[in-house]
């Protein structure tokens, strides 16, 4: 009796799980299906079952729109910001992990404050700072403000605190400079934390819309999400091309998600606030 009930129970459990799975993944499947559909096909719910596949929409995006440029912009900005985050967050996180003084306490308070500040408050001032500082509508505006971020510092500090400082002290006795200790001892030891904050920085900036949108104006400076949002609403664009562009925006994140899922999960559950 009990046994058969538990089998029924687990069947029900799986049915529920699979139904939710369909709801959660369905929209992304639909995106990919539409992206691979011929542009002359009329969209209808039946399109999901169609087996016809074409890459023409992707080819069109690269040959007839600035897709290559948008992707380059997104990649360039996301990589630059990620590299900056890795170097600077570990640097600051190391200082915070190894020293206790009024200075580091103040630093830590500032990190926590920024973690909680709603970013909408800096939209107008950041726009004006970039405008007056002469970096509006340049890569600098998309990179400089984001080179270091509180979540990265937080993650780096937390991880470095768990490592005993003996190696660093030994190197210091041998006469190594602080910079040398940072780059040859701390960085390699902090690799797990670097993986977490790096992948988080990359995904956040690759997906980012708000700041790339308000800090640029020319078409050649658009990142992929900005370009997609701008394409929408144009009479000339159809769903097939829009979804093809969306697929291009999702694929790198999807790849990272499969390779570094553990790091992504530990990063978003530890640092939480930003996205």
């Amino acid at each position, binding site marked *: 009796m009990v046994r058969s009930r538990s089998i029924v129970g*687990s069947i029900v459990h799986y049915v529920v799980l699979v139904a*939710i*799975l369909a*709801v*959660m*993944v*369905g*929209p*992304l499947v*639909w*995106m990919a299906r*539409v992206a691979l559909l011929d542009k002359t096909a009329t969209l209808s*719910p039946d399109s999901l079952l169609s087996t016809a596949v074409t890459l023409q929409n992707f080819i069109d995006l690269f040959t007839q729109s600035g897709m290559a440029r948008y992707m380059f912009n997104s990649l360039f900005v996301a990589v630059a910001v990620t590299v900056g985050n890795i170097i*600077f967050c570990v*640097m*600051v996180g190391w*200082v915070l992990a190894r020293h206790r003084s009024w*200075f580091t306490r103040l*630093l830590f308070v*500032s990190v926590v404050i*920024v973690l*909680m*500040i*709603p*970013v*909408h*408050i*800096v*939209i*107008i*001032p950041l726009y*004006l*700072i970039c405008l007056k500082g002469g970096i509006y509508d340049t890569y600098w505006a998309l990179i400089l*403000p984001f*080179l270091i971020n509180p979540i990265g*510092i937080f993650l780096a500090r937390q991880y470095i605190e768990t490592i005993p400082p003996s190696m660093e002290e030994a190197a210091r006795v041998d006469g190594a*400079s*602080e910079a040398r200790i*940072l780059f040859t001892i701390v960085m390699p030891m902090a690799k797990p934390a670097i993986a977490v904050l790096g992948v988080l920085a990359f995904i956040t900036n*690759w*997906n980012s*819309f*708000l700041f790339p*949108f*308000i800090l640029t104006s020319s078409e050649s400076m658009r990142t992929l*999400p*900005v370009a997609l*949002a701008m394409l*929408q609403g144009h009479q000339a664009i159809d769903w097939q091309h*829009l*979804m093809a562009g*969306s697929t291009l*925006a*999702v694929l790198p*994140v999807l790849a990272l*998600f499969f390779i570094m*899922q553990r790091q992504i999960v530990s990063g978003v*559950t530890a640092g939480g*606030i930003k*996205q």
Partner: protein
Amino acid sequence: MTSRRLSRFLFASPWVLSFVIFWAFPLLYSLWMGFTDYRLLSRSGPEWVGFDNYVALFSDSDFLNSLKNTFIFVIGTIPVTTVIALALALLVNREFKGRGIFRSAYFLPWVTSMVVVALIFTNLFQRGGYIALLAQMVGLDVPTHGFLYDSSTALYSIMAMDVWMAVGYYMLIFLAGLKAIPDELYEAAEISGASSLRQFFTITLPLLRPVALFILVINSIKSFQVFVEIFVMTKGKFDTSTVVYFIYETGLQTQFKFGYASAAAYVLFVIIGLFSLLQFTVIRRRQPLW
């Protein structure tokens, strides 16, 4: 020794600079701007006007409407997101084959770009789109121009999309909270014959309270700032404008009223602060459930 001290300051300087230039200064800058009449094209530069912007905001029907929509968005999505996230966490918390696959799949929408999600759902919400079709199947009326182009459904449709996108993320945080509950508590409850429903209300729920508080606070800070999906899906039309959309519209889109937009930003800033404080006090004070 002094060179060590020096290097410490040097290594901390990227954050100090970033904090001052991109956070502390902007915070004060926009506070000051909120008290000035400052437009892009005004020749005289910012002019001190005291509380004029704030007074004007509270008789500006566009602002009040965006405030109303923002509250509908926050109060409507947060309880739903939290309850579904908890349900999902309980669903995938037990041991079973393929657990990892389901967890990842449920979390997947969160790592997708909001612009992409908004584009996909713009398509799904259209008349003849998938969601419209499903709604018709269960007997719901679909507005003539689809869910997004009708004032009675647009905001709620966007809210539903946001719930879809966020539940997997908060599920992960609940899962971390569930993992921290010691098994012994359930074993003891089992021995004393407590039903699983009773175990849920006397063990699981009370011990998840700190996690729930964290989720409520970060979700409300985020939800009060809803913008991207509004921009992509409706451009603030069909009664979907929110406060951040209002800030964008008045500050950066056409009018470039920096002072006015900054004042609006500060109103929202204060609301978010009060709301977080309220959540802290309410949840901290509540008597234990058992």
